[in-house]
């Protein structure tokens, strides 16, 4: 099931939560809607679900070409997983999952035995086959989230929508459940969108990531594209860390900090002031004596060696701080210490006007 929505606008009073958002989701893909709070990601999800209706001037919402924009949430057949699970407290796990099937009009309601079989299958799929008679209050957070997922899948949704699906869980359960969701998605190949404010989660789980900023889609792409080729300054500053410089560009070079670097072939050109984003991973660190012509001297102020990468806080010769990240191996080869001198130069950077 592919999803295609155009020019969705949603205003609440004076605030514009969505500002002419268009989005395209291929059948079977897992898309993350990522953005800071108030960027409209949850509103977009709710509009796609039919829990909110977009303003009348908005474009269509197509599920496999069928416009569902005027259908109510009941008729859209979307699976929605709520941030706080929204399980029915007074119903057993089994009855929670069976709710959608039992709620169907008599004509299309499956017979009892069939409901029993399908719910059993789903509970097995989410590894809760033995807990069917429990009440939600007797489950752990991770188990509840899986019940919520099974309940949403029970209606054989055309699209699965998840609102901050792991937001309420603690870190370890979160990681487990993330991997589990990816595996489930690989098995079942439903089309799904999920909202998150956690970049790592979006990058790890999703095939594609849509970054939202103030009710607009800033960029859509694979995690790699988004990370290494942020389309806008907002995306560059929102994802990961970057050293920021005020720079100036002329026909051939861009000057920022202590450097004057040639503009790469494929980069935008044009003279004038620019802002330059330099990721910590994109800085080359060398011994001062072996430094290349582009290198500029720097001093290691602090060195954090815990974790997979070594993080360096450097001071350039004019005192400007510079964050750098290098591999453990590189650190070992260079034998860096706090207070030591090094040469640094940028390998890659991005400029924005």
């Amino acid at each position, binding site marked *: 099931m592919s999803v295609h929505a155009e020019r969705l606008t949603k205003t609440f009073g004076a605030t514009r939560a969505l500002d002419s958002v268009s989005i395209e989701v291929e059948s079977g893909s897992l898309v993350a809607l990522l953005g800071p709070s108030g960027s409209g990601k949850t509103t977009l999800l709710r509009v796609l679900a039919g829990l909110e209706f977009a303003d009348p001037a908005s474009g269509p919402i197509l599920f496999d070409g069928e416009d569902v924009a005027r259908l109510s*949430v*009941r008729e859209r057949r979307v699976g*929605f997983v709520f941030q*706080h699970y*929204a399980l029915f407290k007074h119903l057993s796990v089994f009855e929670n999952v069976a*709710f959608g099937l039992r*709620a169907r009009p008599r004509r299309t309601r499956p017979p009892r035995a069939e409901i029993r079989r399908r719910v059993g299958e789903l509970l097995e799929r989410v590894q809760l086959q033995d807990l069917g008679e429990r*009440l939600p*209050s007797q489950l752990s957070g991770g188990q509840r989230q899986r019940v919520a997922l099974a*309940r949403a899948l029970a209606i054989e949704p055309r699209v699965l929508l998840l609102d901050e699906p792991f937001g309420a869980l603690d870190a370890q359960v979160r990681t487990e459940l993330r991997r589990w969701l990816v595996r489930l998605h690989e098995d079942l190949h439903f089309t799904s969108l999920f909202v998150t404010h956690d970049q790592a989660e979006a990058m790890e789980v999703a095939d594609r990531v849509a970054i939202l900023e103030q009710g607009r889609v800033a960029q859509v792409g694979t995690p790699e594209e988004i990370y290494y080729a942020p389309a806008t300054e907002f995306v560059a500053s929102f994802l990961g860390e970057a050293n920021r410089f005020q720079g100036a560009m002329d026909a051939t070079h861009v000057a920022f900090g202590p450097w004057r670097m040639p503009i790469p072939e494929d980069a935008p050109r044009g003279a004038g002031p620019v802002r330059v984003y330099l990721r910590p991973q994109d800085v080359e660190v060398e011994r001062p004596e072996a430094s290349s012509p582009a290198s500029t001297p720097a001093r290691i102020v602090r060195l954090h060696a815990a974790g997979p990468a070594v993080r360096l806080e450097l001071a350039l010769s004019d005192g400007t701080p510079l964050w750098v990240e290098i591999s453990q191996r590189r650190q070992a080869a260079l034998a860096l210490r706090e207070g030591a001198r090094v040469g640094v130069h940028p390998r890659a950077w991005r400029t924005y006007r």
Partner: protein
Amino acid sequence: MLPGFGLTLGCTVTYLSLILLLPLAALCAQAASLTWAQFVETLAEPRVLAALRLSLGASALAAAIDCVFGSIVAWTLVRYDFPGRRLADALVDLPFALPTAVSGIALTAVYAPNGWIGSLLAPLGWQVAFRPAGIVLALAFIGLPFVVRTLQPAIADLERGLEEAAASLGASRTRTLVAVVAPGLLPALLTGFALAFARAVGEYGSVVFISGNMPLETEIAALLVVTKLEQYDYAGASAIAVAMLVLSFAALILVHAAQRLASRRAGSAVR
């Protein structure tokens, strides 16, 4: 540790003993001056039995009516915005704030056969005042705030996500209300019923004017206590009083138990 515990606790216990426990002890002692057989005989007297039955039945019916209309009132006050909502919200407290004697004569004036509303009902052959219906009306009036004020916070606390989840699973609005919303409100509704019922069983002021006070027909238990007292039948009055206390405490205890059961089911992590 803060000072003053012994002093204030001592004063509290003394005050409670003098104002509350001593009088109640007098009541129990008076009732206990009857043998069990005499006690039962007093309550089984046709006039007493009729009064207790009327108080019990009218209170239950009034509390049930309050549950029906109280649910509607509480729902609209919490969920909808309409002109006059704040005024309506304030009006709900009036039965509590209005002295019961005033409520009594006001309801009687309005629902008597020549009253504003009574005169409209009379041609239909419906008489409210001076009939059991009038008693139920007065008790429903008195009990309304209990049901509404118990339900309002419960409705406000309902998790919207539950209703949205039911809708996203394809349930109709009616089914959502019946299968998802109603079970969530049931404990509050039960509490409201019990509070309204317990209040109604002992109610006196708002009822005596509208009830007509015909022995065996429209005489409530509280009135009979007063009557017995005026006849210096202290033991009889005490026996009826004890029966009334038992009825209203039983209602409160039952509901308390039901609530504990419900909250155990819903568990501690009810988010």
